[in-house]
């Protein structure tokens, strides 16, 4: 298992996966407070009398919520594109035969990927959200406690782990990185819109992001349990699908 974890860490470093995740989340973490800080100044000079204060929450809390919105819209897209080749590319290039020949089980391969990249997608959004909190506090004022921010960051990270499990499952099904990313995004945004339309976010993984955006230090238990069940089901199905693949095609 240790060797599999080492292999996945090396894979992440060689393909710059960790760097891309770090850059995406920290770019928004640094950019959002600056945008909210300079926006009133820009609008004041261009449109005097524009009632911006009524439309946008110009506080640390407003920055954090705006950052969460950016992560949902653009972060999800970039994370899907960064991680879409995790299993699909390896199946396509036939490089998975190496760990398989070394005696690694299918479930071990999935577990190693989930552990290494799951930890990365859990911790990087958390670190970025805390950075956003500190930078927004520096530019505005510290009017929000750190505990709701940490809870929000963990919920957001947990949502990213769910995204990772979808990418692994669709990777084994399509064996094509771009198709994997598109399918994951379609399911992801589709579930979000369905949740908004039918008002069932509390039963969907998107409920985690909605709750994280509120920054109220509460954990949506139903959504968390359902998300955990989906993650386990996706990992199990991915492992089962890997077992049915033909490895001697090339």
């Amino acid at each position: 298992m240790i060797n599999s974890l080492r292999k996945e860490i090396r894979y992440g470093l060689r393909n710059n996966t960790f760097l891309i995740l770090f850059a995406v989340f920290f770019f928004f973490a640094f950019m959002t407070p600056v945008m909210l800080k300079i926006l009133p100044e820009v609008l004041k000079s261009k449109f005097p009398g524009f009632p911006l204060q009524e439309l946008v929450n110009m506080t640390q809390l407003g920055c954090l919520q705006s950052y969460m919105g950016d992560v949902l819209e653009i972060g999800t897209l970039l994370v899907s594109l960064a991680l879409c080749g995790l299993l699909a590319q390896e199946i396509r290039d036939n490089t998975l035969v190496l760990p398989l020949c070394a005696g690694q089980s299918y479930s071990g391969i999935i577990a190693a990927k989930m552990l290494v990249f799951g930890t990365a997608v859990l911790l990087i959004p958390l670190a970025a959200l805390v950075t956003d909190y500190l930078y927004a506090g520096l530019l505005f004022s510290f009017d929000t406690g750190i505990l709701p921010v940490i809870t929000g960051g963990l919920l957001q990270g947990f949502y990213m782990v769910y995204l990772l499990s979808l990418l692994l499952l669709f990777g084994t099904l399509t064996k094509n990185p771009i198709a994997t990313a598109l399918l994951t995004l379609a399911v992801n945004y589709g579930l979000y819109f369905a949740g908004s339309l039918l008002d069932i976010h509390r039963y969907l993984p998107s409920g985690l992001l909605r709750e994280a955006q509120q920054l109220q230090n509460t954990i949506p238990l139903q959504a968390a349990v359902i998300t955990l069940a989906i993650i386990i089901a996706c990992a199990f199905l991915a492992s089962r699908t890997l077992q049915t693949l033909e490895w001697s095609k090339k």
Partner: protein
Amino acid sequence: MIVTRELILMLLPVIVLQLGLAVYCAVKILTEGVQNLNRWVWLLICLFINLIGPITFLLVGRKRDL
């Protein structure tokens, strides 16, 4: 309007992140080679398109070794 020095100070973390990524990608382009597009086109994309440029290069432009 906020004075330029103050604005640059506020944007400093973003500038450092963007510049770091651009330099990292430029070194990769010049030392390891590229795929899908010309080397100079990738260099321009990485230097002039904020965040998305370097990330696109790292995802689809980097030369992969099997």
